[in-house]
């Protein structure tokens, strides 16, 4: 039996700072981590199995709770999967509505990230400020769909409802406010705050080599300087018709991961504005039967969600339910890297490193 020098500390699954039910078992000596083991699966609900016993249309409420911080992105992904499998074309207005809502959801998700990293650094005001700005966008989602966290807005062939009247004015109001807050107020709290920089610079470095080794995608990858974004490289929805930049960092540490997300919020605001300007008239949904059969087929769809490249692979066998649905979740791979990057950090940096990877356990454990 191995003897343990120092203390074995269970961080999670009910630790207040681990963002859900992530458990990290760390061996510490003094205040320094010697070894870290990540345990996942506390929120496993068998979502892939659930898909096999539900009709295609009845799986939308389940994908909502997959990554509950960016539910609309999940809905868009699953809707695209079903449409690709069934060969359904969606009208141009629905494409734009999906792009707008997905980007609004991306801003909301990144705001939650900003708030939670502030909170994990001991700065609760950051959380309040970020949620205050998120609330404006949350109101938009509520007005559009009737739901807030799990909006249930997308459906096969388009969306459940059209955008409400004067939506563009209300959205513009909220976006201007978010933009000014991020460009002005957040400088003093985050981006130019010396204590914040002290705590995040050089913490939890994920360099290009490790990114490739662990298969990390999304903002965590772009923070290491890799210029890859599915919205650019293989455009889906209306992303090839709008103009935006891919934000990349340099160092791959917690600070550049943070800055990449702040930059992505500003880019998403640009995308939403362009889409609202170009929003075409016409139908917002292609009517599809509630109970449909999809022929023997293998379908693969991947999209850029706020947390990285999320993919779904579906095998259908001509029935009303999929034979198998496989979900690739981006933060699952990022969390695997924790075992390497947590070694040698101080206890205080554990929570910052975890928060900077932006895990949502609903999506990791599925």
């Amino acid at each position: 039996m191995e003897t343990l020098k120092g203390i074995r500390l269970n961080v999670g699954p009910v630790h207040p700072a681990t963002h859900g039910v992530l458990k990290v078992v760390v061996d510490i000596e003094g205040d320094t981590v010697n070894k870290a083991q990540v345990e996942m699966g506390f929120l496993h609900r068998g979502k892939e199995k659930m898909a096999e016993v539900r009709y295609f249309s009845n799986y939308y409420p389940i994908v909502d709770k997959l990554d509950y911080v960016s539910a609309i992105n999940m809905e868009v992904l699953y809707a695209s999967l079903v449409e690709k499998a069934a060969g359904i074309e969606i009208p141009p207005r629905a494409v734009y509505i999906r792009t707008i809502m997905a980007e609004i959801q991306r801003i909301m998700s990144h705001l939650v990230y900003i708030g939670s990293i502030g909170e994990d650094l001991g700065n609760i005001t950051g959380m309040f400020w970020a949620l205050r700005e998120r609330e404006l966008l949350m109101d938009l989602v509520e007005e559009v769909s009737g739901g807030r966290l799990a909006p249930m807005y997308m459906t096969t062939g388009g969306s459940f409802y059209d955008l409400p009247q004067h939506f563009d004015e209300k959205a513009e109001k909220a976006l201007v406010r978010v933009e000014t807050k991020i460009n002005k107020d957040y400088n003093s709290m985050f981006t130019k705050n010396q204590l914040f920089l002290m705590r995040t610079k050089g913490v939890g470095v994920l360099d290009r080599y490790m990114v490739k080794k662990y298969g990390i995608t999304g903002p965590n990858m772009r923070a290491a300087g890799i210029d890859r974004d599915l919205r650019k490289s293989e455009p889906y929805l209306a992303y090839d018709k709008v103009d935006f930049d891919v934000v990349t960092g340099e160092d791959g540490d917690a600070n550049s991961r943070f800055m990449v997300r702040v930059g992505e919020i500003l880019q998403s605001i640009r995308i939403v504005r362009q889409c609202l300007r170009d929003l075409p008239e016409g139908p917002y949904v292609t009517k599809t039967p509630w109970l449909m059969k999809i022929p023997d087929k293998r379908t693969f769809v991947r999209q850029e969600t706020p947390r990285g490249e999320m993919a779904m692979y579906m095998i259908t066998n001509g029935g009303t339910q999929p034979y198998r649905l496989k979900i690739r979740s981006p933060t699952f791979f990022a969390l695997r890297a924790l075992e390497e990057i947590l070694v040698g950090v101080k206890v205080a940096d554990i929570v910052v490193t975890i928060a900077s990877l932006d895990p949502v356990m609903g999506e990791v454990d599925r």
Partner: protein
Amino acid sequence: MIFNVIYGEVARFVTAGPAWVVTMLITFVLVFAITALVPIFLGWVERKYSARIQSRYGPVYVGPFGLLQNFADIMKLIGKRAISTNVDRLPYEFVPIVLATLSFAMVLIIPFGGANLEFISVPYSLLFLYVFLAVSPLLVLMAGWGENNKYAMLGGFRGVGQIATYELALIVTMISVAFLAGSYNIVDIVNGQSGLWYGAYLPVTLIVFALTGLAIIERAPFDIPEASQELQAGWKVEYSGIRYGLFLIADYVRLMIVSILVVYLFLGGWLGPVLPGFVWFIIKTAAVLLIIMAPRWTLPRPRIDQFIKFGWNWLLPLSIVNLVMVGGLLLI
């Protein structure tokens, strides 16, 4: 001092022997009331203040402007059942009582806005206050050990490192002020500032004192030993009920003592033109309190190694340089 005033009043009705006892009882009740009311009022101020910073309302329902909210919270803490398993009973019970008693003692000897407005006058009151503030590493370690919890022990270790680092800088800054005044008595120090405030002589010492004071009382953002994110509540994690309430009382009383000390040592205490001394004291203390409350709600917490390095590399050398400068000033 207030004790003598009360004794004078009591002695008119009672004979000498019982008069001492009665006076002591009255003083005890008064000091106890102040010690208990400080966290209730300061807690309300802080909750409202932080609510303004965070775009919230803060307490509104209990009492006018939510003034009685903290009273209700203390009542709730008293009523709560204390749950503790596998604790080392002696240090576990000892620490909250001692911390509360220390804050009681600090209220007893500090003047409240006037030369005669202290309960008991002590010749070396500044040194006494320092001792009451700086005894806490021992208590933090005892609590961390006695709770039999890994998080608490980590918090205890951190607390010892942090407070031991900073109390050295604190005593050096206090000594430099005492040198200028030629006395360790707070009343003499304040009276020595009738010409120019010591804060004008020693602006750097003022900042060093405020920072070290915040570090000693573990005030956020320097609440590293009780970091509520990574260590949940650090060395306080196993305490509940009124034991935790005693910690809250000690926290707020020590916060008030530190801001009063900033006013007395550097900002001229109760001295000021036109208005009576007590009003000046209130104005200055309120201003200092609001300034040193703000970082808790606006700054992230530094890491323990960064913070201890900052103490040894910057604050301690700065305060020693200041002490040497004061010595030079006195020689000239």
